[in-house]
């Protein structure tokens, strides 16, 4: 990243005094961000902070330089009016700008599709006109928000010519719970529980991201053993969900063997997570300053003993999938997102890696235990459903190897205290903390700003799904509409994580 750019360069899981964040007029911030993005950085966050007592808003911008392993932070002066839209130059900003417009009323001038992103006002996203294609053969298919299966609510509007999809527009927001609105004045006693349920399948990812931001605001670091335990829980979460996804992909093409086996194996991984803390999704394992429970040697042994057969089982089930020509013909060439598209839309996680992007927070912006123990980044070039399935399989293998390696050599307990939890001092006032965690869906970002009383002033949460839903819409262009379910499953994005 250009050192002359007006960004404060910092790293993952660090706190910065709010006054040290460079401030510049909103128009200039937009221009500087545009330049930084043009240099190959990536937009992590673009959100507003309401000025106390005024109707003005400061915009905070966080860009990630994945190759320089740094994050750049800048903020605008209080602004009341619009600014030239970033989206025209950098499509990856489009949802961020719509969200900023929805939450703070700052209008990105020239934004091509300025609609609200969530159902926070009387006019929800599904009430507004959808992009329409005209023509005699064109028909519109509306799917959801109530679906035929037990899945989360979301509305999909297809413009089709026969079976071919010309355009897909996705309207979400049905599960908006006001999580960001609940945190100011915090941390409240319920805040950690709320963070764990932003997306229930990413409990550890969101919990860790939140706690890393909180701990950096307090100026402490959890004991090494707690960081080790968090890394183990994160990989178990990845194993369970990736395994479940392989099964779900097989189910969508009616390939029974892998589908049935993976459903059971996902349960095995969830049960291993329950060994850590008593909950299959890892709830209440994390606590400010460390972990709530230590993992004694007997349970390490049980974990290893359970992990080996489960990994072997996934290998068998995944190989059925790769060896069935009927499956490959469904996966290959379906729902392709090119490398260029993935770059422009700012995709993260397995979806980005399946389009050939080497992009992994554990590798690019290591924090916590990942500073000491690394995993190779799993990349596949094609960008189709097959690539996304394949990246999941590669990650299952690597996470499995990582877990076995880590469980073989647990770090010792903290000398002296023997505790797995560091005491939490008071938070620093007027400070901004950023933390990124590579959850199984991708980059999970939490940004917390404290006020002069050291309470939360603004807590911004960006689930990986926020980056990736546009990728799904792109993947569907020119596909058969009957391939939508398998494309959707190959991304497997969170509705509630997006809706907050």
């Amino acid at each position: 990243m250009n050192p002359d750019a007006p960004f404060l360069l910092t790293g993952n899981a660090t706190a910065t005094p709010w006054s040290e964040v460079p401030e510049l007029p909103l128009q200039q911030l937009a221009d500087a961000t545009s330049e930084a993005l043009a240099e190959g950085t990536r937009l992590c966050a673009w959100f507003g902070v309401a000025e106390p007592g005024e109707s003005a808003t400061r915009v905070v911008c966080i860009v990630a330089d994945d190759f320089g392993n740094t994050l750049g932070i800048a903020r605008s002066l209080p602004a009341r009016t619009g600014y030239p839209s970033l989206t025209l130059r950098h499509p990856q900003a489009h949802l961020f700008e719509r969200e900023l417009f929805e939450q703070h009323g700052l209008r990105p001038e020239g934004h091509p599709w300025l609609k609200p992103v969530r159902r926070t006002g009387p006019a929800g996203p599904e009430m507004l006109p959808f992009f329409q294609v005209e023509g005699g053969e064109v028909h519109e298919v509306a799917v959801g928000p109530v679906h035929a299966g037990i899945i989360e609510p979301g509305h999909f509007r297809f413009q089709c010519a026969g079976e071919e999809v010309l355009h897909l527009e996705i309207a979400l927001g049905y599960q908006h719970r006001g999580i960001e609105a609940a945190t100011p004045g915090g941390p409240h006693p319920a805040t950690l529980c709320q963070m764990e349920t932003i997306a229930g399948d990413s409990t550890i990812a969101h919990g860790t991201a939140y706690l890393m931001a909180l701990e950096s605001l307090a100026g402490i670091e959890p004991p090494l053993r707690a960081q080790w335990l968090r890394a183990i829980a994160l990989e178990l979460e990845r194993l369970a969900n990736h395994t479940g996804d392989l099964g779900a992909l097989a189910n969508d093409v009616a390939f029974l063997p892998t589908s049935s086996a993976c459903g059971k194996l996902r349960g095995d991984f969830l049960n291993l997570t329950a060994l850590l803390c008593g909950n299959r999704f890892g709830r209440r394992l994390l606590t400010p300053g460390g972990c709530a429970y230590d993992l004694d040697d007997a349970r390490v042994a049980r974990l290893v003993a359970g992990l080996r057969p489960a990994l072997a089982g996934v290998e068998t089930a995944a190989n059925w999938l790769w060896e069935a020509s009927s499956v490959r013909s469904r996966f290959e060439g379906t729902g392709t997102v090119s490398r260029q598209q993935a770059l422009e839309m700012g995709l993260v996680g397995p979806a980005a890696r399946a389009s050939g992007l080497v992009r992994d927070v554990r590798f690019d912006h290591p924090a916590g235990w990942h500073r000491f123990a690394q995993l190779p980044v799993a990349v596949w070039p094609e960008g189709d459903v097959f690539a996304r399935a394949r990246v999941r399989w590669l990650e299952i293998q690597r996470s499995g190897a990582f877990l076995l390696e880590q469980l073989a050599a647990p770090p010792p307990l903290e000398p002296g205290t023997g505790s797995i939890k560091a005491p939490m001092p008071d938070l620093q006032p007027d400070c901004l903390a950023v933390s990124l965690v590579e959850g199984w869906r991708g980059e999970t970002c939490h940004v917390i700003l404290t006020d002069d009383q050291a309470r939360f002033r603004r807590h911004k949460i960006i689930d990986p799904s926020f980056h990736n839903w546009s990728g799904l819409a792109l993947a569907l262009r020119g596909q058969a509409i009957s391939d939508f379910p398998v494309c959707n499953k190959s991304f497997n994005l969170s509705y509630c994580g997006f809706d907050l």
Partner: protein
Amino acid sequence: MNPGFTNHFLLPLLRGVLQIAILLLLAPLLPGIVNRVKAWVAGRRGPPLLQLYYDLGRLWNKGIVLSTAASPGHLVGPAIAWVAILGSAMLLPLGPGDALWSFKGDALLFLYLLALARFCTASAALETGSAFEGMGAAREVSFAVLSESALITAILALAVQTGSLSLTGMLAPVPNPSAGLLAAGLFTVLLAENCRVPFDDPNTHLELTMIHEVMVLDHSGPPLAVILHGAALKLLVFALLLAQAVLPLNHLSLLPATGCLLAAMLVITLLVGFAESLLARFAFRRVPLLLTTAFLFCLFALLTAWKGVS
């Protein structure tokens, strides 16, 4: 009692009632067997063998929810389709038993009754005005063009082979080399016509990928029960057609013939179950390839039969 009355009226009537009862009662067993095979391959316990009977009973006692866009055709469609499928079943001989209803050229009626059933299901689906059901109906009739041509060719092959124009005569083949070709072609048609994997997935909940299931999405209560029973009956019809087109059962006496027919039905159902367990579903653009292959199988069966005659 007058023996003429007994022989010419009462016995045929009893036999007819019995035969229809067997058809109607046996049909829901087939999907049950398929589901048990799938469950067994997947290592699950699976639903009870008689699950479809329970479902039918449950649906029959439920109320009906109607789309405001639907005309009476929405309700009449499934009823006509069911009657048409039953009519086509009555044209088939049951192993040692003759067909209930047989005349020269009844094979044409058989084809038309199946087409009528399809038309009624598709038009009842269009009644709701839902985009999904329109797509499902469009898919159903597009694929039908190919599967019907295969079925017609298979019946032609049988007609040439046996020199008969009635199904009772056609389904009494002598052992011949084209049986294998015919079996492959008709089995593929059976899978396509009954919406089994790899053509359709009867278990999917994804409305965008369904064919048959999406057409019945808006039906409920007794009409849905009629549709489900009709689908099971159709599977039975195709399995009976396949078994009797290939196996020379008419040379056997009553008991072995009945046993052979039942065994053949079981084998066909198991094969459907295994195909469903071990194959992924085809993408729609590849379905025509497979159906054309089925058509070619039947065509070669026809050519073989022809050459054998001359």
